[in-house]
């Protein structure tokens, strides 16, 4: 009977209002009941529903937790429930006042979860969905939404490879399922597609992750990488205005600084090596380009409302500094959402406006950070920053050798962006259980950037452009229309079902322009007078003057439906279907079908377990679903021509006209078939709860740039669907209430995931492609691919020469194809072999939350195991030969294999010596807080807290931080261009009014 209430999406709570009388009942048969609903501490629970089961008669409690209701005479039972509390049945007698105490629904299994186009009680979910509520978020202020659930969801890997305040978090779910298509999960913010950094973490109420195919199939071609459903803070029912204010300040330090020689060490160790040159000064270039950053965040959040109208408004400012000088990000997140119910709650209107404003330093032409700044901390430590005449020291002869202080100081630039997310929705509920909803939304993103490199800029010292300016702007728009209808009902008392059908139309459009000019008389215009440069008069010149623009659009159209059925909450069945088409698909395949089916058996509801105290929850699940991934770019299937490449004719260079790729009218989505088997359990009154999932996901029709035969094709690759990848894995999550006392609680949760990945094929009948493909680049001066994709092997294999020894003179000895040692001078591509793999095969997370009276403490630890890291920094800068190009790491003069130092004439080589074990265990987040509660009318509480992030790492890896990029086709490659990873210290105060 609780089903109707709990299955409803949040707004249907309100549909049961006191004024909507049940048909067929006479006025004089009514009885008046009233009371107060409280939680276990005695505090009133506002917005709780009080209703007669199986009818539409009911009401919600007011701000004081009180309710009053006329019920038909003879009504025996009232049901009282609220989100986050277990529903209670109250047996009515002759009395007219019934006070109800609600028990907090502390266990995960009792929660409702978002399932896409609706919510569902956790106990009735048959697929793999993880739900994290606000109180369980990782308390990391200043990060994005992904950080809130870092280490909380088994199988979801959240990675922060760098400390750049503008860069996003990396996310991957259940292994690498694709080669070329996007690996990003679909992120829905209150049902509208977006991204994890588009919403302020302080506005988020819960994050649900649809992990398996049976859960995600309702999202068709966007479902393969999982779906992250973000629900922002909201209120239902009568609530006095409450205000939350949060203030944070934080600073950072580099996790571990790379050990380049100091000037003194350079003079001592470098002496006698080719390239050693003492310029007389002593400079620590790392100190010159980094700083102790201060970031601050201010967040204010207010909410309230009446029975009919609720509102939420919030505003956040974040002023973030990065550890690299100049690097920053200033953001504002405004948000307003209003919900209104009318015509006896038959109509609900919901509208919201939110978004952000963003402004950050433009460190390079088009991006926040010029990687050359970091790469040039190997500048000769004896070279002064400035010459006696005040100009920067420059050496324009050495490749990629720029005075990093000049790069920082002589770059002017800003990127300013605005995101506006607008949404309006109307829900029509003609009868209880039947809802029609129409949702319209439009997201508009505008970005403008300006960038200027002065006459004194290091790039201009090398390539004299006399000042270089660029301006660009981008506008993106996403329009969404979604129409859904849902019917939920019960027949023969114990059979509960929900039927959903819908239509979705999504259109994306983007427009872009960019211009560059150089040859400025003065620096004072910066980028604000781009026409003042003289290069435009001489016409286009690559790297000096350019102008470009483009526009594109795509649409995604879907028809979908879902049926959920359960019998007595014991046996659950659910099935979904989506028929989806995309403009990106080739004309031979415009539409695809995606479906899923899942079943669950809630053993706990069986008679033999129902009364067991030992086993408090037990559910078995099995699900199968097909999802897709659409091509990441538009127009890929079309036979496009380009007027572009110039040729000499008619007395000059003129544009030619030619096809610019091999067209593929059969281009379509990748298909993923996924099986998921799971078990949810609770022991000893749910003191121990847990989830175990096993999955097998196979991606077919992999999108890839397949090598095609030339001849007959003009271009040797074609974007097509052919190969397949298999991922299998297991996820285990266990949560234990170690201590559950009134004044002392300790929850300890641990989760583990393991994934095994294999590239099954890179061919099909049409494409007999090679069974391998080399990926990534070491960059100069090695110029080698770092990884090899190989059929029968996992993704992420490092592919290079296996060093086995070093000769007495300091030259590498590698293992030849025949297994015999040979000189590196005789290297052949065929000598290369698998040197390791960059994707961790095991992840372990351990989260602890302790509360003693008003003191709270949390400790989150994370580890990744079973992978290697390619230390590119060492490959390039731990070699004496690179003394010719500036400073090198101290370790360049360590004996290799304990035998000999690398020779001055040993060029840099991609050998296995630089592939290191990456296993790590991190104390990732430590938070200590104290809450002062007040009985005052003006203020409810103040919480003071401090958070340390990325506190300590146990690892054998010798680079900056073993938490390197593990997504894409080149996982585990730790580039010398990487913005350094940091440790952060935060202090904050939260006020609740």
């Amino acid at each position: 009977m609780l089903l109707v209430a709990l299955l409803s999406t949040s707004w249907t709570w309100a549909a049961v209002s006191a004024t909507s009388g049940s048909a067929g009942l006479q006025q004089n048969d009514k009885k008046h009941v009233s009371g107060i609903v409280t939680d276990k501490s005695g505090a009133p629970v506002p917005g709780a529903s009080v209703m007669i089961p199986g009818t539409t008669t009911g009401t919600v409690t007011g701000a004081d937790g009180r309710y009053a209701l006329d019920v038909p005479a003879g009504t025996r039972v009232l049901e009282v429930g609220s989100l986050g509390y277990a529903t209670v049945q109250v047996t009515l007698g002759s009395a007219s006042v019934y006070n109800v105490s609600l028990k907090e629904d502390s266990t995960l299994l009792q929660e409702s979860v978002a399932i896409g186009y609706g919510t569902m009680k956790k106990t009735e979910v048959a697929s793999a969905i993880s739900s994290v509520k606000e109180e369980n978020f990782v308390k990391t202020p200043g990060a994005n939404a992904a950080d809130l659930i870092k280490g909380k969801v088994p199988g979801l890997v959240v990675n922060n490879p760098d400390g750049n305040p503008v860069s996003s978090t990396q996310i991957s779910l259940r292994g690498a399922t694709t080669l070329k298509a996007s690996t990003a999960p679909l992120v829905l913010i209150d049902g509208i597609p977006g991204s994890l950094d588009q919403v302020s973490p302080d506005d988020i109420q819960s994050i649900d992750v649809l992990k398996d195919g049976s859960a995600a199939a309702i999202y068709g071609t966007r479902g393969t990488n999982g779906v992250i459903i973000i629900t922002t803070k909201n209120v239902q029912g009568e609530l006095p205005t409450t205000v939350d204010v949060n203030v944070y300040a934080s600073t950072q330090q580099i996790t571990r600084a790379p050990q380049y020689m100091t000037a003194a060490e350079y003079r001592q160790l470098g002496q006698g090596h080719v390239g050693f040159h003492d310029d007389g000064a002593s400079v620590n270039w790392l100190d010159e380009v980094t700083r102790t950053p201060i970031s601050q965040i201010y967040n204010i959040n207010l909410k309230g409302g009446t029975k009919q109208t609720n509102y939420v408004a919030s505003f956040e400012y974040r002023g973030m500094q990065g550890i690299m000088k100049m690097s920053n990000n200033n953001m504002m997140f405004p948000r307003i959402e209003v919900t209104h119910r009318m015509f006896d709650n038959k109509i609900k209107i919901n509208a919201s406006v939110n978004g952000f404003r963003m402004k950050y330093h433009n460190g390079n032409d088009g991006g926040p950070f010029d990687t050359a700044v970091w790469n040039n901390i190997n500048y000769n430590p004896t070279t002064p920053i400035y010459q006696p005449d005040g100009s920067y020291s420059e050496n324009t002869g050495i490749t990629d050798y720029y005075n990093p202080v000049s790069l920082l100081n002589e770059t002017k630039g800003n990127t300013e962006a605005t995101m506006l997310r607008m949404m309006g929705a109307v829900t029509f509920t003609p009868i209880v259980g039947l809802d029609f909803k129409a949702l319209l939304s439009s997201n508009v993103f505008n970005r403008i950037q300006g960038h200027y490199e002065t006459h004194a800029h290091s790039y201009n010292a090398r390539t004299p452009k006399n000042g270089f300016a660029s301006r660009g702007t981008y506008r993106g728009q996403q329009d969404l229309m979604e129409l859904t209808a849902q019917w939920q009902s019960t027949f023969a008392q114990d059979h509960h079902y929900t039927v959903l059908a819908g239509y979705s139309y999504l259109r994306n459009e983007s427009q872009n322009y960019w211009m560059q000019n150089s040859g400025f008389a003065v620096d004072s215009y910066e980028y604000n007078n781009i026409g003042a440069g003289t290069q435009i008069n001489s016409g286009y010149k690559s790297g000096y003057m350019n102008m470009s623009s483009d526009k594109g659009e795509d649409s995604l159209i879907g028809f979908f439906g879902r049926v959920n059925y359960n019998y007595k909450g014991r046996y659950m069945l659910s099935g979904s279907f989506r028929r989806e088409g995309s403009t990106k698909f080739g004309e031979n395949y415009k539409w695809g079908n995606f479906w899923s089916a899942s079943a669950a058996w809630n053993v706990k509801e069986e008679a033999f377990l129902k009364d067991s105290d030992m086993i408090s929850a037990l559910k078995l699940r099995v699900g199968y679903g097909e999802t897709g991934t659409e091509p990441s770019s538009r127009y890929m299937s079309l036979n496009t021509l380009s007027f572009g490449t110039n040729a000499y004719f008619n007395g000059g260079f003129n544009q030619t006209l030619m096809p610019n790729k091999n067209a593929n009218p059969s281009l379509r989505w990748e298909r993923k078939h996924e099986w998921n088997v799971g078990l949810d359990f609770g022991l000893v009154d749910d003191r121990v709860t847990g989830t175990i999932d096993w999955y097998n996901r196979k991606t077919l029709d992999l999108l890839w740039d397949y090598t095609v035969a030339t001849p007959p094709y003009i271009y040797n690759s074609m974007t097509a669907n052919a190969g397949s990848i298999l991922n299998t894995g297991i996820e285990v999550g266990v949560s234990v209430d170690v201590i559950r006392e009134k004044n002392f609680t300790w929850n300890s949760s641990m989760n583990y995931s393991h994934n095994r990945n294999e590239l099954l094929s890179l061919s099909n009948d049409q494409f007999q492609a090679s069974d391998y493909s080399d990926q990534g680049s070491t960059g100069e001066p090695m110029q080698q691919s770092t990884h090899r994709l190989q059929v029968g092997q996992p993704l992420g294999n490092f592919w290079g020469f296996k060093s086995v020894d070093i000769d007495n003179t300091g030259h590498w000895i590698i293992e030849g194809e025949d297994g015999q040692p040979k000189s590196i001078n005789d290297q052949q591509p065929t000598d290369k072999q698998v040197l390791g793999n960059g994707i961790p095969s095991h992840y372990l997370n351990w989260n602890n939350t302790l509360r003693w009276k008003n003191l709270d403490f949390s400790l989150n630890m994370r580890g990744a195991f079973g992978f290697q890291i390619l230390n590119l920094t060492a490959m390039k800068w731990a070699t004496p030969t690179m003394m010719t190009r500036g400073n090198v790491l101290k370790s360049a003069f360590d004996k290799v294999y304990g035998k000999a130092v690398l020779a001055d004439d040993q060029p840099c080589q991609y050998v296995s010596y630089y592939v290191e074990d990456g296993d790590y265990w991190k104390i990732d987040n430590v938070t200590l807080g104290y809450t002062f509660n007040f009985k005052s009318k003006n203020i409810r509480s103040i919480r003071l807290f401090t958070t340390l992030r990325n506190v300590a790492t146990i690892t054998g890896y010798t680079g900056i931080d073993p938490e390197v990029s593990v997504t894409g086709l080149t996982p585990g490659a730790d580039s010398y261009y990487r913005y350094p990873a940091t440790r952060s210290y935060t202090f904050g105060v939260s006020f609740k009014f």
Partner: protein
Amino acid sequence: MKKIFLAISIACAFAFTACTDLTEQVYSSLTQSSYQYSQTDLRPVISACYTPMRSYQSHTGLWAMDNTTTDVLVMPPNSTGWDDGGRYRRMHYHTWNSEQGEISSAWNATWRGIGLCNNALKQMEDNQLNLDSGTQAAAIAELRALRAFYYYIVMDNWGDAPLVTEPTQELPAKTSRTEIYNFVVKELNEAIPALSDVQGGAQYGLMNKWAAYALLARTYINAEVYTGTAHWQDCISACDAIINSGKFQLSENFRDNFLADQAACASNKEIIFAIPFSQSFATGFSLHLFSWGAPIRQKFKISATPWGSGSAMAIPQFIDTFDPDDSRLDDSFLHGVQYQYGTTKPIKCIYDAINGEYPDLAYTKEIQSGNFNMEWEGYRMNKFEVLPNTPGSLDNDQPIFRYAEILLMKAESLLRSGQSGAGALVTQVRQRDFKNNPEKAVVTDDQLKENSSYKYGYYLEDYGKSLKEGDTSPIQFGRLYDEYKWEFVWEFGNRTRCIRFGVFTKKNWLSHEAKGEGVAVYPIPESALTPNPNLEQNPNYK
């Protein structure tokens, strides 16, 4: 349920005109299906077929296959850390295999050229552009001759290979080298009558009649290598067609052929066919970057820094063959002390500080070995004019056929077919190079029959210490072979001649040891072989 669909349908109808329309709206590119071709597209369509050639000029493309594999140039690694996985050295050692990037780059560019020609020919044959019959015939002739050029590259570098003459998606099998040879000869002979006979100017850089004859001569002179049957007289006829046209003459100065001046190149009477480049509009000619090394930037005051890998340099034994009075030595190579632009101030080395000091840059003839060199070792490129402020890409054009080669090819054909007159032709080419010693320019038929003056032998390290002399048998017409190298070092065709004169597969030089006949053709790249089961790898590389 009815209600639901009704609601959806109504909402659709109001909100969007078509709720299932998935037509792609294209804004900033063109699609084949929607583009309407017209007569104005003639040159853009035909000239597009020339553009793949530009990628030949690369240290990781056909240029390397043609030069650093021979006895004239080498690219050893150096102290800047650069080795790029040993790829440049493998070209010198002749230890490439089917994964060598240079070879796949040239293969892909060549077949793209052929594919574009086949497409364009189909368009012309179908008269998609609505041309008058004269224009149509000329367009078809030009495309056939251009396609023949690409097939010449295929035949020369890979031997047996596919022969595809129309747009198709069928996977081709191999055709014998002889058949491709016959195809090239037939196509050129059939195309020539309809080709333009204008020299230079508007026809500069295009496959006109003279370019076609030059290609025909180059094909005939190698006929014995390609088919086993010599065609010396046919080569002489093709050369004579050019010589007797009266449209060509040798430039007064050797370096006039290598100017950074498009107009001068277009009116040059010696250049028969070239690949035009531009520092802004047609980039990719970066010979200065990959030969010079960073310090030379100061000598020419250019605005780009030559690459740390800058290492294409003369093999010492080759420099030894030069007559000291031959001005082509200076005109082709930077050697000795190098000075800053417009001064007599020596340039300092940039990378190789020795004992804490950067020595003056003075290029030595000697190179440590093919495995390593110091910053100052090896003679560098001085053939192409480089103007101040030149960026990373040159404005110069890459000559493919010069009149000098026509004269030398005719001389060779006369020599090889036992006719007289070769000496006079070679003398004609040499005259501009011995302006101060005109008598030294004179060379006789008999002198051309002498052995090469190149001291072949394998020097593992320390130049001058010959460890493996290898094959020391005399080279027939070796002196003429030397003449070609003095004239054409840094250009294309060096490998072809190295094979024709029996050097490529038999002799040792610097750190290179002869690898036998198998390497006379390159392997078919792995990337072309795997997707096409009908294609068989060349014998040496199976």
